[in-house]
């Protein structure tokens, strides 16, 4: 910020756009430095929205037994979902682990082929090996119900959004809110409306899992080329025929990808649902967390990872097969297909009959159980003992040189200057629209009455995103350039993406204490895998001959990366930045549990104390505002770069 000197602030009408951003920053810094007083929106702004939320919450609490909304709407939904889940749970108990494993493997075999059938069998057996058979089955049932209901609602809405621009425009911001609003913020409302237990856990999961189903279905429908659609029109097809005969079949692959994303979203909600008494693996993680038992939490997390890997690989393979099948027109020969169906039926029969022969076969044999709790605990203890010196130095250094200055700049400058400064930055990065969105979102944060918290959180998120990008580019370039590194690291990245953050909360606390930096570290662990993958993808998509010609003209590896590969992958880097910010933002609430303060703590506090329920919800919305602001700025940066180049 101080690199520039003051004489670079000319009033010239045609000054170079490159200077505009530093100029804004310097001006902002000067205002902060020679401050116009440090007092800034006393009490954080107006509180009427928080009070209003609290009143709604209390009205709902009081009206549960009398209001028709509850008697005819919320209560039946909760009751139906609850009974579906409990009957499915007793079904899994009756089938035993062999039955479930048989059925799951057979389904994978049918939709995704032999290899994935085997993968499913191994995955399902691993639940028992980790000693979490019963918990895994409880989780499985809730995930299946949540995903099924999400698709039931999401796919038709997605089709609608795909064919109607009007509906698409209405639904997009709603989906944004559903995906960014931290679950913690609305969890108290869910328990108010749908009570506690597996049913409300499922409903909380659905709120988060429906958006990808809608989005990808709509995207699939829109992807179908206009030429094809017009051709069907010219053949006299009705709108309905066009949809069912042309658009839906051609969008199938993208829709199956939506199923995949819905499943992943549902899996990421397991631990959160456990906070409102949904049983299963999430409950194991929480119960280990309160005992600070890193090993037990990791063990349960590993079972979640196994489940996620099975779901992910099988649905991905299924989506590829759907496409291949539709292109080749059912190339698989009659015989192999019969063989697959036969084998699947055989597997199911075997799995179901075994416990029938001997009831003791229904439970997973004890001798096969080998949990990971103890080894993980020893590693965690050793690490804490020997690394603490280095990690606490890191905490102090980063806080002193990065977090404190940035936070002070955001919090101790008068708020109109902050709003103006950020809006100008957005303008120079992406144009008028993101500038307006930025100003609007910041005014929203003020309206929520949570200005200081918002600025604390914004500072943490920006620094978290910066670190995520550093890690993402470092590893992403490595993975993008080396196949071997990719194959070695990718499984770890996959695991990192689905491992519940509550598992690494305690290790983070152990190494970095209860600080704002700890919140950032937790966010890094969560956000880096996705960013690394996107950067690697970008590096790989640089045409090989471009890279080769750079090498042949005498560039060394470093020059090739910096001068050729990274600049050419700029589009993907911006996508990575955008995703990185959204992922870091998703961890704001988790940060609130480890000392990060800010909006995350406000949300946690709102969940813990009903008098602050209004503030918690408002803080959740403030997070949404920050999210939309950062998302629009980074997206517009991608667009404007592309158009100017």
């Amino acid at each position: 910020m101080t690199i520039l000197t003051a004489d670079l602030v000319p009033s010239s009408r045609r000054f170079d756009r490159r200077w505009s951003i530093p100029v804004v920053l310097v001006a902002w810094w000067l205002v902060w430095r020679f401050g116009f007083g440090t007092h800034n929106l006393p009490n954080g702004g107006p509180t009427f929205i928080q009070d209003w939320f609290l009143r709604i919450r209390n009205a709902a609490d009081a009206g549960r037994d009398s209001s028709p909304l509850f008697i005819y709407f919320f209560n039946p939904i909760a009751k139906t979902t609850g009974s579906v889940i409990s009957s499915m749970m007793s079904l899994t108990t009756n089938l035993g682990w062999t039955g479930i494993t048989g059925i799951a493997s057979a389904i994978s075999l049918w939709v995704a082929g032999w290899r994935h059938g085997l993968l499913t069998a191994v995955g399902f057996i691993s639940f028992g090996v980790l000693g979490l058979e019963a918990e895994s089955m409880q989780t499985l049932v809730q995930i299946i119900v949540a995903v099924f209901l999400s698709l039931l609602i999401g796919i038709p809405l997605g089709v609608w959004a795909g064919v109607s621009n009007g509906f698409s425009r209405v639904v997009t911001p709603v989906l944004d809110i559903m995906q960014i609003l931290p679950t913690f913020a609305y969890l108290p409302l869910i328990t108010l409306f749908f009570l506690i237990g597996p049913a409300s856990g499922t409903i909380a999961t659905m709120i988060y899992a429906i958006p990808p189903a809608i989005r990808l279905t709509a995207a699939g429908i829109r992807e179908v080329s206009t030429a094809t659609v017009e051709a069907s029109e010219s053949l006299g097809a009705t709108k309905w025929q066009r949809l069912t005969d042309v658009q839906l079949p051609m969008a199938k692959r993208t829709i199956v990808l939506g199923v995949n994303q819905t499943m992943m979203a549902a899996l990421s909600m397991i631990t959160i649902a456990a906070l409102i008494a949904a049983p299963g693996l999430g409950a194991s993680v929480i119960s280990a967390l309160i005992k600070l038992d890193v090993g037990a939490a990791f063990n349960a997390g590993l079972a979640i990872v196994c489940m996620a890997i099975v779901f992910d690989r099988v649905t991905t393979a299924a989506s590829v097969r759907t496409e291949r099948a539709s292109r080749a027109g059912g190339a698989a020969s009659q015989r192999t297909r019969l063989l697959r169906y036969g084998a699947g039926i055989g597997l199911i029969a075997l799995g179901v009959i075994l416990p029938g022969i001997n009831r003791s076969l229904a439970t997973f044999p004890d001798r096969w159980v080998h949990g990971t709790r103890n080894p993980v605990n020893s590693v965690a203890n050793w690490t804490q003992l020997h690394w603490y010196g280095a990690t606490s130095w890191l905490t102090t250094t980063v806080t002193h040189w990065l977090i404190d200055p940035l936070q002070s700049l955001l919090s101790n400058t008068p708020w109109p200057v902050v709003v103006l400064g950020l809006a100008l930055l957005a303008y120079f990065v992406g144009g008028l629209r993101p500038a307006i969105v930025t100003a609007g979102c910041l005014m929203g944060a003020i309206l929520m009455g949570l200005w200081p918290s918002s600025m604390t959180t914004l500072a943490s998120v920006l620094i978290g995103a910066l670190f995520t990008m550093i890690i993402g580019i470092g590893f992403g370039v490595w993975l993008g350039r080396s196949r071997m590194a990719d194959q070695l690291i990718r499984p770890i990245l996959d695991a990192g993406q689905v491992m519940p953050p509550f598992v690494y909360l305690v290790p983070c606390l152990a190494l970095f204490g209860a600080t704002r930096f700890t919140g950032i570290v937790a966010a890094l662990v969560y956000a880096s895998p996705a960013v690394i993958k996107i950067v690697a993808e970008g590096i790989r998509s640089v045409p090989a001959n471009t890279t080769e010609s750079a090498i042949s003209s005498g560039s060394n590896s470093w020059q090739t990366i910096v001068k050729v590969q990274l600049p050419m992958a700029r589009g993907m880097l911006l996508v990575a930045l955008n995703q990185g910010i959204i992922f870091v933002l998703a961890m704001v609430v988790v940060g609130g549990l480890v000392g990060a303060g800010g909006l995350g703590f406000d949300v946690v506090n709102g969940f813990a104390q009903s008098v602050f329920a209004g503030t918690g919800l408002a803080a959740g919305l403030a997070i949404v505002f920050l999210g939309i602001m950062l998302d629009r700025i980074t997206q517009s940066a991608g667009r404007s770069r592309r158009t100017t180049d």
Partner: protein
Amino acid sequence: MRRMASLRAAALLACTGVLLAACAGTSNTAASTPATSSSAKPCGTVNIADNPWVGYEADVAVVSYLLKTKLGCTVNISKIDEQVSWQGFGTGQVDVILENWGHADLVTKYITTQKVAQDFGSQGNQGIIGWYVPAWMATKYPDITNWQNLNKYSSLFVTSESGGKGQLLDGDPSYVTNDAALITGLKLNYKVVVGGSEAALIKSLQTATQQTKALLFYFYEPQWALANLKVARVTLPPYTAGCDANPKSMACDYPPYPLNKVVRVAWANSGSPAVNLVQNFKWTNDDQNKVAEMIANENMTDDQAAQKWVDANPTVWKAWFAGTGLTP
């Protein structure tokens, strides 16, 4: 085992029959049946809230173990937060909270206004809230445990979060705290830093003990972690009634919290013998710490820990069966 269970079931059935007949005659005899005769009604289902700290889990472990094995109840345990548990009284999803720490606002809402819950008396544990330092600090700086000397030592407690002042670390936001008001009232050069969870507190204490780092923190007993981690309490000016009236500034210690049980009114009137047991449930901080320690540190399941404690302390829990109709 199975034989005993079926015998008990048969006995219960027989008793129910007898009692139904009795009830048909005069309505009040059931309530006044002496404890020595057989149980009044089958137990049915008991929904117990399991709030997320290990001491509470110990309460649930022992009570549900006795309910299941001695009275044949079906016990549903819901792992939920304190706040959400109270909501459960209204919806019928929670019958019992076994360890309530004050919560005046919830008492007003659900006991006084909505009348869905009722206070079921002390459960014996004394909740102590206060400021603590790791034991090594009290050894090295013997006068640090007096609040008047805290300012002298504030530089020891400076962290990256405390803005140059001494740090006072708080934990889970749902726990009762006056710390900011205390710092103002006692004119201390400290700043409250909110850890955000109990895990943040205990992990910080573990680190401070293991690495001999300074730490001043809000903490409470009974607390399982204190079995392994030694701490010293900082004495604050003693509590007097009304000294905590000003929420902005206070100059006195936390009062002791007699922990109590809260139950759903409709369940309390159900006549289940489980109601008597819950009403009689009462034990000491030591009892709870023992069970909590087994659950948290010795890797026992709740039932194993409960069984071990039950086997070792028959005189304590046998008293809880008064009025259930069962003399174990």
